[in-house]
């Protein structure tokens, strides 16, 4: 992130599918616009963010995002504005609320469950490990054999 800002300061607007004419003059605002664009889906494309897309609709959205930023909206306000118009579907980063909590909780919960299951399995393997500790009669028999 810091690197990107650094780059922006160094050069006049490093961007992806953004046309040179769209770039804002203020590099700080532009980098904010770019970060927001990367999290918004191009609605008519297939799994592309508006930042990557060459589609006209993506361009309109990019310009809209920049317009809102120049008008003084915070990042959250810009995203809220776009979501209000186009629905939650535009967010590439799913919101952490409602049923989506299950999605976000799945990786850590599954990992813990997997580790617990593996732990139980490994401990059981160890318990049954080395059953060759000799029983008393066996030890006696061994001693007998050794004496011979």
């Amino acid at each position, binding site marked *: 992130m810091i690197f990107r800002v650094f780059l922006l300061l160094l050069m006049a607007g490093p961007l992806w599918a*953004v046309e040179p004419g769209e770039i804002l003059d203020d590099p700080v605002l532009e980098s904010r616009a770019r970060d927001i664009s990367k999290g918004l889906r191009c609605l008519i494309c297939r*799994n592309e963010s508006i930042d990557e897309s060459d589609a006209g609709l993506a361009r309109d959205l990019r310009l809209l995002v920049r317009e809102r930023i120049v008008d003084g909206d915070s990042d959250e306000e810009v995203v809220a504005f776009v979501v209000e118009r186009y629905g939650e579907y535009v967010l590439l980063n799913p919101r952490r609320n409602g049923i989506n909590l299950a999605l976000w909780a799945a990786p850590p919960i599954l990992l813990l469950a997997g580790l617990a299951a593996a732990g139980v399995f*490994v401990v059981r393997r160890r318990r049954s490990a080395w059953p060759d500790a000799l029983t008393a009669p066996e030890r006696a028999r061994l001693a007998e054999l050794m004496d011979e």
Partner: protein
Amino acid sequence: MIIEIGHFALILALAVACLQMVLPLVGAHRRWSAWMAVAEPAALMQAALLAVAFAALTYAFVTSDFSVRLVTANSHTLKPMIYKVSGVWGNHEGSMLLWCLILALFGALVALFGGNLPGGLRARVLGVQASVGVAFLSFLIFTSNPFIRLDVPPMNGRDLNPLLQDPGLAFHPPFLYLGYVGLSTSFSFAVAALIEGRVDAAWARWVRPWTLLAWLMLTVGIALGSWWAYYELGWGGFWFWDPVENASFMPWLVSVALLHSAAVVEKREALKSWTVLLAILAFGFSLIGAFIVRSGVLTSVHAFANDPERGVYLLAITGVFMGGALLLYSMRAGAIQSVGVFGTVSRESALVLNNVLLAVAALVVFIGTIWPLAAELVFARKVSVGPPFFEASFTPFFMALALILPIGAVMPWKRARLGRIVRAAWLAAVGAFGIAVFIWMIGTGRTILGPVGVFLGSWVILGAVADLWARTGREHSGRLRRAVRLPRADWGRVVAHAGLGITMIGISLLLAWEVEDIRIAREGETFSAGPYELTLDGVEEVQGPNYHSTMAEFRVVRDGRAVAVLRPERRIYPVAGIPTTEAAIDNGVFRDVYMVIGEPQDGGGWAVRTYIKPFANWIWSGAVIMGLGGALSLSDRRFRVAAGARRRAMQLVAR
């Protein structure tokens, strides 16, 4: 006429597959050796018939026979020959024919090289393999027949999607299919073992080379696809967490887990029922992948041929095979007993952890991929799950895997001592840390992820070296000779692990150090990107075989020395009416200079994008090296001769 021969061969192949499915399975159950013996000739015959069908379709494409509907829809007389051939599988019907051909080829390979398998197991494996063949052949013939003729052939075809007219994409699907379909063999072995109720070291030794082969092809296929996306889509991304990419990544993850757990079964007779489950799930994810790609239910950039009816059929195939196999598993898994025991600190435990991480990672990718569908169907909530989710939830799994990998690799079986592990691996850890510090210093104040990724990658690579070192004993004299004499499977493991490390370094540094520049450039203008000076020498119109091109010429100079001349293009394919961008890339070991030319601007000049992509080629080189490791391992004497397996099999019969 040739088309009809192909069509006829296809239908005959379905009939042969039906016989190959029923007779050997019944024969193995009743111990009728004559019925069991049908399996091998049927497998060879099925493969031969499908080869004839495939050759006939290829002939139609090569000769541009526009009386065939498929050729009209996907070819054109002006298309270069290589894309006429690759056009055979650059569409839904042809790619499903390729799928069936590969499925039958794997069956034929089992028939040819399965001489050392016990008769019953071989018959059952081929029978199960044929049942998959029956499902896909009937899918092909009844919903997606490639040999349908047109009543009135047009003068010329509608051309192949220009994005697919590319050498990288020409060979991406065959490799990917070899991987997907190769996992069907592991599946057949698993189901056959469940029917027999016997899983032992010998079984694992037979399953491993097939899984290894499938994994190898999948690795190369995924790398080819990622490389293609990198240079063709015009912004130099290499992975997008697109549903279709995930569809190939899930079976890859599960097959990696399967390779490692099968090693435990082979060496230690533990983790048996888990390994069988993985073998079933690996192919299950392949089927789900086929469903996702072919139905287009999850919209993505790859869904160039989709149809709901086909989607339902594929979903049914997935449901029947997974449901059936898992039901069988639930009934029989209890009977599979693992005898091997091991301590908490042992290679077995490390591989269990490896399997947990890989399996959960695959599950996470799966959940993220189908979440939009589930949320909409069940909760009426239309959401997207994009790269931010996958990056946040998947990356920790791979970091953990990289962290434990070298430790697990130097651990002995059964019981390990921490002191010896530390002795074997401390130098690798110190070395990796040193490299990471160096990376941190030359990239001051940028991002922590770069050095962390480089640490993990170097740790994996140096860990592989430590593994090799430990494997060749303590004596220094004659180490080289001993290294040369190591089994190729050991070399394969070391090389594949090192390849993973190389890929990890490539990804980390590309993400950390990429330089981007977008601007309007006029002819003769010079500008800089990173340490490079770029001059736009000129823009000209060029006529290609089946496209018009606008080609720019850039001179790339660094410190006064000419580095390269780059010619990025914008192409228009008039028949398909689709424009594409052709990036120009100067490939290097430590960086790529990547240029794309955009629209001409109103005030004169051209929109130009320039990227300096450090270590980009390491990503795919690493994948190729991983594949090479797989190939080395596959050539191991143990798999070729399988002498131990034969002895083992005889013991089993004797029991």
